[in-house]
């Protein structure tokens, strides 16, 4: 296990990058603590897989250094870094049995056969495939194959970190839950440093202690799931996390009051926003629909099961509100913003509000 320092790493797939936009990874500077469970969350093409491949050594960064426990490993090969990685699509060795698939990484490292056997049997129990040890791997279902890929990562107990690149994409929803909780258990039991790339917020929020949100080649926020939900540092995080995403409304500021069209919204404090585009962000969960507050016209009510999402028009802007499954939409609906859920953004970045 290791602490991983990503030291001012930039990466471009071009040979001669000039502008900022040539970089797939603009500049990442972050420490993955030893034994932490991290999720890298972001939309497709934001650089999460690039960052992961740089950590595992499949890619060499254009700039910057990578440290494992303080030791510079930037120029070491994947094998020397001793990393395990699980890919989006199951990678199995067709011609081998399940057992041999798991033994493969150990045998390549010339581990004595007795130890190989012990480790493989342990891992087979862990991933629940002990009964299939002697089956040919190619005959298995997609989720069993992915378990084998997973198992090949877990079988080496001395790895510095285990990296996951959207490993549950091809798995059925029901199995996703099962595998994810198994991973979580393994993490608790063995304390691996795990980095898990995904574009699925549920996956990220349930798996990780710390979620790293990436956008356009940069890390925009690192935090616990609760922090990301309550205090998104960037409007992108607000949109991206939550279902539906955060309502972001352009406002004008007047001390402790935000002006939205003809409406005046009281803020919990006075934001220290300078010039620039000022926006008010509030999650649908903090929008209270009732008979008091600002008048809205409801355009649509979506019943999503456990609750309802109300789409409404406030001062010409679309907003969403979440109400209980049994709540009714009043005849003359009005909304109120819960002050605890209000965030103010200047040029898309969150600003603190003083008392």
């Amino acid at each position, binding site marked *: 296990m290791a602490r991983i320092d990503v030291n001012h790493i930039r990466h471009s797939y071009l040979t001669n990058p000039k502008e900022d936009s040539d970089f797939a990874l603009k500049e990442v500077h972050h420490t993955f603590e030893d034994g932490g469970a991290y999720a890298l969350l972001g939309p497709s093409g934001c650089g999460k897989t690039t960052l992961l491949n740089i950590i*595992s050594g*499949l890619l060499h960064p254009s700039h910057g250094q990578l440290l494992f426990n303080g030791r510079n490993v930037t120029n070491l090969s*994947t094998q020397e870094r001793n990393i395990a*990685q699980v*890919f*989006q699509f199951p990678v199995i060795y067709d011609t081998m049995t399940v057992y041999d698939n798991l033994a493969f990484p150990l045998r*390549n490292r010339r581990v004595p056969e007795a130890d190989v056997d012990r480790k493989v049997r342990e891992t087979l129990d862990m991933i629940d495939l002990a009964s299939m040890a002697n089956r*040919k791997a190619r005959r298995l279902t997609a989720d069993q194959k992915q378990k084998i890929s997973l198992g090949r990562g877990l079988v080496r107990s001395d790895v510095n970190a285990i990296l996951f690149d959207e490993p549950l994409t091809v798995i059925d929803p029901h199995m996703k839950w099962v595998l994810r909780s198994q991973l979580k258990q393994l993490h608790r039991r063995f304390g691996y440093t795990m980095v898990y790339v995904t574009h699925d917020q549920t996956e990220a929020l349930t798996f990780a202690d710390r979620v790293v949100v990436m956008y356009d080649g940069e890390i925009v926020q690192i935090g616990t799931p609760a922090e990301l939900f309550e205090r998104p540092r960037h409007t992108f995080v607000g949109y991206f996390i939550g279902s539906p995403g955060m309502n972001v409304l352009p406002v004008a500021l007047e001390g402790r009051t935000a002006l939205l069209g003809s409406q005046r919204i009281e803020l919990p404090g006075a934001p220290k926003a300078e010039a620039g585009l000022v926006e008010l962000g509030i999650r649908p969960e903090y929008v209270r629909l009732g008979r008091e507050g600002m008048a809205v016209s409801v355009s649509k009510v979506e019943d999503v099961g456990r609750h309802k999402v109300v789409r409404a028009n406030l001062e010409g802007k679309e907003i969403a509100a979440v109400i209980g499954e049994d709540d009714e939409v009043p005849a003359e609906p009005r909304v109120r913003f819960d002050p605890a859920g209000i965030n103010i953004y200047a040029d898309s970045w969150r600003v603190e509000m003083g008392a």
Partner: protein
Amino acid sequence: MEKTWNNKAWFLVLPVLVLVAFSAVIPLMTVVNYSVQDTFGNNVFFWAGTEWFEELLASDRFWEAMARNLIFSFIILAIEVPLGIFIALNMPKKGWGVPVCLVLMALPLLIPWNVVGTIWQVFGRNDIGLLGYYVNAFGIDYNYVQDPIDAWVTVIIMDVWHWTSLVVLLCYAGLVSIPDAFYQAAKIDGASRWAVFRYIQLPKMQRVLLIAVLLRFMDSFMIYTEPFVVTGGGPGNSTTFLSIDLVKMALGQFDLGPAAAMSLVYFLIILLLSWVFYTVMTNYDAER
């Protein structure tokens, strides 16, 4: 569900039946017809029964040609398949080198058989051939017109030159279809170059290799034009393969009956061996 019976449907398959009849069934039946009769010309035929078949199977000439054919096929498969895999593995996977390599590889395949024969016939000559002249100039006694071994070497090198590309292109197609993730996973798992070949590339190439082996076997077993142009079956009978012998018999000696019997046996052998190859390799595939 009730099935509708309508004999008019036969009209729909009629065109293809007619086509197959004229292109395959009728010629084949003509050959069958010749094989059981004897003729002295003037379109006069006498019933001969199985005489030609018995004579053929008892003749040394036939079995010797057959042995030459089998040895030839075995040698060129043993060279072309590993060589083809080796070249395919070393071809670039991206960049400007890909089209260059592909075109270079496809070139020999585009040359007509008799032209290939002529090229090598001239290339190997002692007096004016680039290869023949310089090999002799280096003190190696090489003369494919007189020495059976030299004739064999020439014919084999020619076939390797002509057909290895086919194996290369098929293998290359198999190789480029392997997703990157497999190579990345192999790196993570610490696999050696050999292990990557043995456990990732070879299994993924297996299907195309099956096709390559089948095609190369059938083609080499039926080889005619190139050795005919280069050596004409000689020196002596040393490069007389079944097809060359067959043409000699049918068109040289005009022995229609024995030649027909021989083509049928030849046809059945190719059919049988191809079937054996195919079954063995697909069964092997299913077992795993």
